[in-house]
């Protein structure tokens, strides 16, 4: 446990790994890393006392997938969580697995693989977790659609304008 990182409001602190922590509106402390630096930054966070892994969220943008990791520190006096963001191009959705740093990331990475098609390099058991093994496609991708979706995507703004005319 090291308490050398002092996070106060408005103060940008440098993490081991050469990345800066900023305070983002709505999210709190956030650090954005490049895909190549993810392992280094994660190891730095673990060393700094962020031991409790909470979740991974993918966000699908037209050209890239953003991954948002949430980790929490139970050791620090001022207990707080931090977001770690990274971006992966859609054409090459591969990223390092963090299972050996936070074992709790195991199922969360499987979930992200299942729903977003993200490959986690070095994951011990990268299989689908919610969908059946023979499922085709990754449901949370924006371009995903199949016959089983009873109500298709609809546009609220277009609907309201139709009523006015």
């Amino acid at each position, binding site marked *: 446990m090291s308490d050398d990182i002092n996070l106060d409001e408005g103060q940008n602190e440098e993490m081991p790994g050469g990345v800066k922590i900023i305070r983002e*509106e709505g999210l709190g402390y956030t650090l954005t890393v490049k895909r190549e630096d993810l392992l280094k930054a994660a190891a730095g966070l673990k060393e700094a006392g962020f031991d*409790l892994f909470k979740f991974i*969220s993918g966000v699908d943008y037209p050209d890239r997938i953003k991954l948002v990791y949430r980790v929490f520190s139970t050791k620090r006096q001022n207990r*707080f969580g931090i977001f770690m963001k990274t971006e992966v191009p859609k054409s090459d959705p591969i990223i390092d697995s963090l299972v050996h740093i936070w*074992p709790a990331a195991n199922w969360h990475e499987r979930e992200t693989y299942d729903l977003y098609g993200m490959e986690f390099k070095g994951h011990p058991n990268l299989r*689908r*977790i*919610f969908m059946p093994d023979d499922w085709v496609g990754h449901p949370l991708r924006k371009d995903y659609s199949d016959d089983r979706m009873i109500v298709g995507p609809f546009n609220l703004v277009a609907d309201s304008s139709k009523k006015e005319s």
Partner: protein
Amino acid sequence: MSKLEEQKLPDKLPDSLLEREFEIEELKSRPEDTIVSQELTINIGPHHPSTHGVFRAIMDMDGEIITRIEPVIGHLHRCFEKIAENRSYAQFMPFTDRMDYTSAMLNGWAYAMAVEKLAGIQVPERAEYLRVIAGELNRAISHLMTYTFSGLEAGAVTPFFWWFEERDKLLDLFEEIAGARMTFNYARIGGVSGDAPDGWFDRVRDFIKTLRSNLDEYYKLLFGNYIFKKRMKGIGVISAEEAIRLGITGPCLRASGVNYDVRKADPYSIYPRFDFEVPISYKGDNYDRMYMRFLELQQSLRIVEQALDQIPDGPIMAEGVPRLVCPPPGEVYAHVESSRGALGYYIVSDGSPKPYRVKIQAPSFGNLQAFTSMVVNNYFADVIMIFGTFDPCFGEVDR
């Protein structure tokens, strides 16, 4: 002379029996190392009555001891996160009740909090108090269910009936404010759906008074029961480091001695105004995980009493909340302490009436993962008990 002695034995045993006898004799005469013993693979679920939902586990057993467990989840997967992307912010509210259905109030509250934070909506005081009262009573309901099911798994049927009576009274109270008994849909973006009817606060006070006076008896009935203690104490032990490593949150983490409660660590809503404690225990076994919930239930009642004393008059919905909430582009994260652990919503908005992304951080998902890692090397008979103390809710695991 008895009938038995009268019966005459046949001169010759039937062939099939003779063969069997021969097999046994042959086995006896074999040297020990040639006797084949192998690991057995067995399956429980997906509809085993004690799996608290639709959960399937494939286990490799060495005698009575589990050597490997492979969980299969996703039977209840409805992809709520995809559903959310195709609906307006307010339309997603009823879906939150279908996740952790035993503490639906807390789910709706967390989602409403996230959207309010994103859209910059200030919730009126009275609505905040009503949310706290409903939420804490819902936590009590959820914990009551956990004991009763755990008792059933250990063979104690009486607590189930006794505690379910209390739960039923609470559900009646919820019916009065929310109109439903399970899926309340009580929280709204900017407030709550309905004010408390006349005399409701008094009825809540009466309920708390009766429950308090009964708690002692209930404690003796389940926690003082010899068989229950035998099945619970010293079984399924998790150390604090292990619990953190496996990503457990909620009462199960606090039973291992880690003082982490979102209500204290990152106070939200109006929790700083209340005087309450976060119970902690250090053994981390089955019994502590259950007992933690018993103490927590009493703290919840304490919070509700304080909220009933403090609740002001006023509106229950924020003014000027549009019917179609269009928050500005941005990202937001809001979390609450659910009855099972830290429950969070991460929402990305692109400025349109529909959320761009809703991520639900479900405490049961993390707890179930931890359960499947720590249950190896335990007896099969204890697995169900350990599973019960983790109390995962499969609506939430599979989302």
